[in-house]
């Protein structure tokens, strides 16, 4: 039996413990051990942002984070953005503003967008800069930024 390490973390608000090989990526823990397949692997090199999750509230590419280093921390995946069965307002805005096409980058974009909004960033070009770690090949980003602006507008009302 290969060596295992214990990882205890808060995952989408729930206390969870996993026994994993020391080299396991956080991405694999989420997808294979926790069954949270919403987090996608697009490149495995931290370049595309499809695997973005919140680690203690900050967006990180989970393909570059060792599962063991998440021990004792708080992780939120796309599945954890909804509350009380309702999508996060940014997810809702992506749907209603047409910001979803093939959908493969969408979970990562949703997670990063929620972090952008949590930091109260309201300027669209600054929002675009903060979103530039999440590649999308379908939308040209216009409707994604429009969705962010929709939520920004709601919050400022």
């Amino acid at each position, binding site marked *: 039996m290969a060596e295992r390490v214990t990882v205890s973390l808060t995952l989408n608000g729930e206390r969870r413990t996993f026994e994993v090989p020391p080299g396991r990526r956080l991405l694999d823990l989420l*997808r294979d051990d926790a069954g*949270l*397949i*919403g*987090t*996608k*692997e*697009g*490149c*495995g*090199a931290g*370049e*595309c942002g*499809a695997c973005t999750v919140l680690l203690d509230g900050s967006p990180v590419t989970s393909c570059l984070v060792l599962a063991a280093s998440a021990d004792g921390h708080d992780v939120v*995946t*796309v*599945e954890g953005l*909804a509350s009380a069965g309702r*999508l996060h307002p940014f*997810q809702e805005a*992506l*749907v*209603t*503003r*047409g910001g*979803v*096409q*093939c*959908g*493969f*980058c*969408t*979970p990562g974009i*949703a997670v990063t967008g929620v972090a952008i909004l949590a930091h109260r960033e309201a300027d669209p*070009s600054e*929002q*675009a*800069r903060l*979103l*530039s*770690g*999440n*590649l*999308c*090949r*379908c*939308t*040209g*980003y*216009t*409707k*994604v*930024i429009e969705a962010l602006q929709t939520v920004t507008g709601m919050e400022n009302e």
Partner: protein
Amino acid sequence: MSKRAAHGGPLGGRHERPDARAKVAGSTRYVADLALPGMLHAALAVSPVPSARVARLELAAARALDGVEAVLTAGDIPGKNQVGVVFLDQPLLVEDRVRMVGDRLALVAARTPEAAWQAARLVQPLLEALPGVHDPVAALKPGAPSVHEGGNLVRTFRVVRGDVARESARAHVVVEAEYHIGGQEHAYLEPQGCLAIPEGRERITIITSCQCPFYVQQAVARVLGIPLAAVRVEQAPTGGGFGGKEDYASEPAACAAVLAFATGKPVRLVLPRELDMQASTKRHAVVVRHRWGADRDGRLRFAEVDTVMDAGAYIGLSTVVAERANVSSIGPYHVPVVRVATHVAYTNNLFGGAFRGFGAPQVTWAAEATMDKLARQLGMDPLELRRRNVLDDRRRRTSTGQLLPRPVLARECLDRAATLAGWDEFHARPRAGSAAAREGMGIGLVLYGCNLHHGGQRLDRSSAVVILQADGSVVVRVGLTEMGQGNLAAAQTIAAQALGVDPAVVQVWQPDTTTVGDSGPTVASRGAHMSGLAILDAVRRLRTRLDPVAAELLGCRAGEVELAGGFAFVRGEPERTVPVARVAAEMAARRIEGIATGWHRTKARRFDPETGTGAPYEFYAMACHIARVKVDADLGLVRVEEVSAAQDVGRVIHRDALEGQIQGGIVQGMGWAISEELKLDRGRLANPSFTDYTIPTAADAPKVKITVMESEGATGPFGAKGVGEPSLIPTPAAVRNAVCDALGVEIDRLPLTPPTVVAALGERHPFAWLLSERRVDDHERLATFDRDG
């Protein structure tokens, strides 16, 4: 009943895309999210060199690795060792000859992906290097190493109309140019992948990320040596395609299928990004030579085009791409004399394939560059030069001699885009003059033949199935695929419009080869068109059974039944209604067949492949993009500030999906124009990652302004035309022309990366003395686009 449905139905609206909610919640399952008990993971051992003879494959180390269940080579393939759509020149697994980097040598199946890929790396090929050829022009010269038997010229396509020598004499200005246009990586966010589930050695199910389940079905049946009916291919939710999952998706599927038959277990294959970029098809690199002449008033007299396309090591779809490039070479212009030759050349490079635009973006880039050069030589506004030459309602014969149906909206596209962009205002005001931010504006215009070319018209048919459920909800299956572009939304809208129900009532399911007929590939901007017409046919047939039941409930004749807003009603008496759901329940109660199939095939056309004249396409769409750029002339950095798009779409089906196509097409086109460079080092891709191959980020995206033109007369569903590709094609040309406008130089090379821009400035660059040939690479490293802004 929704308000919208009451007033004319969902057509042209912005209702929620049916796939959006699951995708945004992260619950859509792509191939990599599917697993079965006992499932194995596949990996590929590939060639690191572009041209070699295989002396031996050493497999013992790979087979000995813990967790490995199969290591297979060419001899283990039960059927034919062949893939490819048009010509069968490509083996699934190399037998003795390597022709490109990434050629498959062996297949591995193991219990974990890590073990599978480690075993693949342990496959040791003994390769004897052979000479290779990496330049398509050089490949056609006598004495070049032959990639396949029979020489490197695969085919030449031509358009020949009129006498060039006679018109040459009448030309006042002549532009001669040689354009070097690079390839492009699709960079779909979801890598290629599939899951193969065997049933003994009799049948197999393939669930795959693809644009054409029917191509996959054919490839799998061929390599397994089983009938088509024994292969069930289901399209999984597909994370982007752009042409990259048209034919290539058959190859990973064939690999997984062979492993699944050999092991008797489900096998999943997902390509790692680096291998996906290295081994999959690309937009073709081409060299285009032009000699175009115009008279004193700027009217085009003749156009000669000679294009060499780098097919790479296998034909794939290259001849089909060349067929489109060939007839798209002149653009939407009236030219009395045309001579086009398009040559397809084998090399030992990565192989070219389908990519959004399919050969048209390259030749459009060249044509639009030449138009701007002619304008500069004549001292004429580039917009005015185009206005004088575009096809219109009086002059509507294309360069292949096809008479376009009215209305021909080229001039309207130009004028609307110019208004949107503020062309006249931009040119009236003084330009920002500092070297760090020179401004420019440029035009790109395309005439795009929708659906498949004459040469592929045997594939231009489509199938649909519509099932009216007992509760009034509706199942729709079409043979065309959703890969992000919005085909589910389009099919849903069209079915809802035709049945007079709310779109939310209609569920469109992804195709499966056992439930819907072969509808060809989802390419050529034909998805909504071909899905839609087949759905309308199915609805027409369903109504032969639905209308009599509705008529009985309404107390009228079947011929008087109309459907709208969720109700069947009596024509002319909208107060006499019965819900469609009630009619459905009645049909179910009476055991009346609630399922109907639909079929559509495009009209047969006349086209002479020898002279390239006739009607290559059934109908055309038009689009004009105008780009405004800022160029930092010191660094050679291009920033696309704004793109204004005017597009003839026939009829809007789903407005958000349409806008998404245009916005996304523009940004993908912009990436190809300025930053996406395939760096080939003797056939090996030197930059197979998103750090080194830079696609646009949110921070790079320009502001996009859109005006869509609806027009009568198109044969699509409710008069709609294809939109996927006309949305991309004009942008790279518009960006090139804007950069040249900003700098006052001609750039004949794509992409316009910093070294290319700086090199074009030559002695005019402030640091020209620094930029010796040797230093260009260093400069490029310093000046690559900074992801973080």
